[in-house]
């Protein structure tokens, strides 16, 4: 397929969309969250219902990726009215169809609703949950059928790839990404443009692009939702990166616990190859780029870039010391660009709208938007995307609809096992890289666990330490033995058996493990402990055995 063919397809698909014979479109969320609460049966039942009523020429039913409030699933959205139904059950589909499509009015009692609000919003776009979000990476998630490349093409899919191949030099692409000031969304926040430029500068016949989809933080599912909801966006971002740095091969490393994401991503590769948007001589140019999926086997540490690379090479997934960084010597010793799923998902909008547009969103040091996975004691648990710099208060109370059962907010845990807890007095913290670090936490990949007073902070620290202890690869001593010792000490405190000496040793070990571990897993494993000690020290001291 050449450039003209692509334009023709997009034109034809857009025409089809405009002259749409359907009066209504019903989107049923088929992300892994909603599927687990039965959305596939709902979809089937809905299609039967539409058929029995003879509405199939008026109503289009499509499966989509994640819509957001996962704990309210299965979700079903009626367009153009924008009525979203929550916890849809096969038994009330008939009633919903009757009311919505025949009587032309929604059933208010079944609409998306947070317990903290007085009544549901008829048009879901009025709900602060949607109103306060800004979706860039998740733009098409929940609107398009992720299993059809045509759906993506209609929404300007692959136009950015077309643009870079025909109108931009690799240097210009890198300059655009640099100008956007986007920082790596995997957690560490390294400027993506700088990374691209570094890999670009290493001269080598063979370079690689790797997409890190080995998301492993407890409670986090940003990458999963992007891969499930809009796999082509990630693929396009990878191809653009390949063009920019001079790579002809990409690997998407996706964790094995995400079968649906793997299935959809592999399907996306197949579809893109068929249309000549991937493979040899893309769109008739000299640029060739191929992507292969590699499936993780359940090790958290394989999200660390050097361990991930070892795993792709077929070796035991253990990190190695850096330098040399993968940009210089990565996969099979070749210069390698490795970015997170969410980073790649933001690339095509940056190319389409310009780096400057992206850089103006967010805060001066943290540009753009960030996807968070809200979990815990919050009314709307699920997936959100907000501009950097949005306060935690806005996220919890406006977007998240407040704490369940009207309880008080106690703390928010960011960054998973590498992050820390933010107490209530810092609810007005701006969610950006620097502000979170200054509170002893990190942005991380975007996990955000909300806790109320029922959470015991020492136990929270113990939980995350247990996680790190189990997930340590066992290569270096501080992480292998240090996390075990810290876990045992935390367990002792939880059992009210520890003394002040134990607490002192725990603190000393925490700093030791942080500073001496080989990789980021060990280096950040003490963070949940250190941050709870900083903000909730009293809870530790209350449990210390006092000797007279």
């Amino acid at each position: 397929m050449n450039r003209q063919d692509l334009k023709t397809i997009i034109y034809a698909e857009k025409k089809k969309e405009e002259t749409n014979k359907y009066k209504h479109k019903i989107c049923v969320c088929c992300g892994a969250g909603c599927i687990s609460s039965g959305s596939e049966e709902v979809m089937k039942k809905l299609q039967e219902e539409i058929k029995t009523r003879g509405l199939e020429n008026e109503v289009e039913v499509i499966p989509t990726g994640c819509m957001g409030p996962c704990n309210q699933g299965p979700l079903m959205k009626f367009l153009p009215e924008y009525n979203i139904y929550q916890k849809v059950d096969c038994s009330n589909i008939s009633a919903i169809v009757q009311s919505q499509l025949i009587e032309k009015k929604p059933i208010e009692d079944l609409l998306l609703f947070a317990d903290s609000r007085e009544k549901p919003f008829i048009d879901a776009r009025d709900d602060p949950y949607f109103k306060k979000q800004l979706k860039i990476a998740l733009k098409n998630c929940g609107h398009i059928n992720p299993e059809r490349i045509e759906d993506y093409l209609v929404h300007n899919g692959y136009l950015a790839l077309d643009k870079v191949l025909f109108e931009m030099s690799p240097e210009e692409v890198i300059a655009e990404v640099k100008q956007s000031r986007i920082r790596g969304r995997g957690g560490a926040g390294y400027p993506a443009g700088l990374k691209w430029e570094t890999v670009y500068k290493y001269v080598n016949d063979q370079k690689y692009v790797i997409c890190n989809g080995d998301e492993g933080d407890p409670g986090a599912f940003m990458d999963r939702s992007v891969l499930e909801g809009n796999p082509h966006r990630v693929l396009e971002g990878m191809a653009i990166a390949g063009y920019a740095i001079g790579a002809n091969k990409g690997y998407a490393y996706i964790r094995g616990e995400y079968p649906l994401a793997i299935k959809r991503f592999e399907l996306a590769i197949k579809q893109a190859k068929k249309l000549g948007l991937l493979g040899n001589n893309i769109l008739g140019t000299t640029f060739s780029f191929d992507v292969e999926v590699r499936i993780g086997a359940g090790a958290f540490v394989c999200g660390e870039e050097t361990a991930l690379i070892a795993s792709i090479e077929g070796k035991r997934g253990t990190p190695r010391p850096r330098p040399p960084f993968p940009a210089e010597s990565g996969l099979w010793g070749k210069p390698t660009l490795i970015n997170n799923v969410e980073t790649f998902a933001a690339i095509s909008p940056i190319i389409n709208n310009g780096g400057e547009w992206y850089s103006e969103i967010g805060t001066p040091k943290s540009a753009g938007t960030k996807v968070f996975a809200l979990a815990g004691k919050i009314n709307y648990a699920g997936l959100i995307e907000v501009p950097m710099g949005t306060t935690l208060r806005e996220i919890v109370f406006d977007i998240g609809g407040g704490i369940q059962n009207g309880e008080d907010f106690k703390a928010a845990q960011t960054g998973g096992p590498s992050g820390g807890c933010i107490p209530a007095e810092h609810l007005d913290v701006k969610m950006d890289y620097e502000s979170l670090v200054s509170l002893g936490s990190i942005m991380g990949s975007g996990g955000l666990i909300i806790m109320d007073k029922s959470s015991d902070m020492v136990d929270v620290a113990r939980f995350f330490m247990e996680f790190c202890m189990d997930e340590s690869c066992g290569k270096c001593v501080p992480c292998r033995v240090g996390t075990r010792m810290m876990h045992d000490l935390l367990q002792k405190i939880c059992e009210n058996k520890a003394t002040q000496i134990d607490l002192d040793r725990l603190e000393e070990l925490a700093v030791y493990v942080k500073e001496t571990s080989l990789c980021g897993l060990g280096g950040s494993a003490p963070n949940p402990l250190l941050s709870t000690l900083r903000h909730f020290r009293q809870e530790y001291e209350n449990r210390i055995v006092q000797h007279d």
Partner: protein
Amino acid sequence: MNTIPIIIDEKKLEVDPGKTILEVCRENEIEILTMCHLKGVLDIGACRLCLVEIEGINKLLSACTTKVAANMIIRTNTDRIKKYQRITTELFFAERNHVCAVCVANGKCELQDLGYKVGLDHIRYPHLFPQCEVDTSHPWYVMDHNRCIMCTRCVRVCNEVEGAHNWDVMNRGHQVRVISDFNSPWGESVTCTSCGKCLHACPTGAIWPKAIVQGQLQKNPGMINELVEKRKMKL
């Protein structure tokens, strides 16, 4: 070859670029403690004993895997580094069952030497006392996992020097174990050539020949590098 200037512990040196900090220190009689390093096999930076401070880099880097660069200012013996070396040593001893008095390696053990060097008189952390296997299935050698410190010198020497790749690692975290083949008894290995290099590579009393008793172990870890060098000379 052109040399580059670096400073290690206030000492001004002119060194060959391309060498690691550890190599330079050893050549200049600056002591760096190591456990997982074995001359002749690839370095992995796992024991974290050789960490050094480098001006301008906020992370501690392992001397065995970091190459020297011009004008590097390196410190190897600050209070912080000494403190961390001691903690690492304590963790080694607390992790498995190291009882020198009844160990074949008593007096010939690099872990024991390390204990003396860092002035270890007691261990502040509880001993974990894991139940580890002692594999006596090999006709000549014994693998005692109780004494293993997971330096993986045996794994590397078997793979890189002997080319057999009998040894590897399984499991994660504190559950890691060195395994023979796909975790079968050593005596049943189809890859082991019984060359005995792992025995010389082992810093502790984890791998030893049968028919010796406490303190009788003879080891020559230096032979590994001699072998590697001789092979390079194609003798």
